[in-house]
């Protein structure tokens, strides 16, 4: 029985992301070296490893925020440095910090962000309703709690058209009820042909999920 995933999308729109012997050095020491893996539409990769083992660094490399020591990142068969603009239009990166201006309101932050990223303006879903911040969306962000800030950042997932989601610890400081909602959002993104690369300690139990652990011996991949 062919994998349902492939039926949903015709071949043309299949997105592929692959890392070719990627390595990164910090203070003359290799955090990890020659990592090679490939992800296609509908794949989700969970990066494991203790804190400080380089999970966040790997995510920053994939999002081109950091330049690798050697090796390359390939999107749709081309090196991301050559197609920087079109690649980054398809990328949504959520880091440790929420990335919201504290003096602006959550609404203003999202409006500003939507102007700079490919987002589906027609989609009438109200992101702040989804993340349960509807009545807080007009206060400046510095009045919001850490959990609310995180959800305000996660609101972007509802409006973004980006195919590749790079999420760094998305489940931290959000409550049980919302993390279920977040998980279902991720699954629906995969079904729509998106790719997700995330670093988290939670066990998501999403079927045919790929794992990659950065242990001290660098580059050990466990399928």
């Amino acid at each position, binding site marked *: 029985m062919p994998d349902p995933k492939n039926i949903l999308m015709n071949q043309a729109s299949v997105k592929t992301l692959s890392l070719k012997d990627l390595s990164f050095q910090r203070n003359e020491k290799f955090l990890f070296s020659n990592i090679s893996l490939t992800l296609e539409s509908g794949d989700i990769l969970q990066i494991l490893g203790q804190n400080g083992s380089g999970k966040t660094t790997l995510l920053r490399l994939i999002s081109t*925020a950091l330049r690798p020591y050697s090796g390359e990142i390939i999107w749709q068969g081309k090196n991301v440095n050559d197609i920087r603009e*079109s690649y980054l239009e398809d990328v949504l990166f959520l880091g440790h910090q929420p990335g919201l*201006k504290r003096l602006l309101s959550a609404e203003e932050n999202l409006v500003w962000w939507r102007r700079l990223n490919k987002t589906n303006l027609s989609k009438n879903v109200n992101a702040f309703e989804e993340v349960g911040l509807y009545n807080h969306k007009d206060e400046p962000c510095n009045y919001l709690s850490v959990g609310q800030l995180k959800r305000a950042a996660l609101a972007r997932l509802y409006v973004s058209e980006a195919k590749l989601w790079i999420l760094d610890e998305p489940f931290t400081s959000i409550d049980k009820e919302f993390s279920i909602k977040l998980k279902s959002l991720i699954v629906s993104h995969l079904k729509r042909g998106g790719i997700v690369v995330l670093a988290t300690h939670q066990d998501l139990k999403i079927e045919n999920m790929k794992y990659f652990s950065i242990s001290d011996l660098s580059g050990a991949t466990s399928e």
Partner: protein
Amino acid sequence: MNNIGFLAILRRDLLLAVRYRGDLANPLIFFFIVIALIPLGLTPDSKELSEIAPGMLWITALLASLLSLDGLFKDDFADGTLEQIIILPQPLYFMVLAKTIVHWVVTGLPLSLLAPVLGLMLSLPETGYLPLMLSLLIGTAILSLIGSVGAALTLPLNKEGILLSLIVIPFYMPVLIFGSNMVVLAVDGLSIASPLAIMGALLALSLLISPYVTSCALRLSIYG
């Protein structure tokens, strides 16, 4: 395509600056205080004061602009928006340029407009007022552009106070020389064409090079 990023950052930062006008006044207050110090430190005699007025006005404006420089990327770096800006599809060059222009509008512009008033306090001759404003308008723009490089290079360091000035001031010296000299020439009734031309050239050069170097420095130092 490029100017979306530029306009968005420009609008956002101007909105922030206008909404929180508190720190708009800092460079101006600094300017006032230091100018008030000079006669006390030197002489109340207006003839001697007018001798040194152009130089002192320019030095104080330079220091006032330097004062507010380290905040350029600091709060974006702290709340994680800088990380987002770096991976936006639009080129970083224009976004850095937008932030530098906002810094100029917030510090350089008011300093230049206020300078003639303080020139009055230092008994600067009337013929010097307009050239002083003109030289400061161009000069503070160059200072903001060059300063953005220093701000980016010292971004992740939190105790960098003197380091930023040490890095940036050698680059400020030519601007100071030509800027204050323009006012001196004007006061003596000579033409200010040549220093003005050189200031224009310095502005063009820094306009071209500084945002590029700053974006390289940002990519480098964001995860310091």
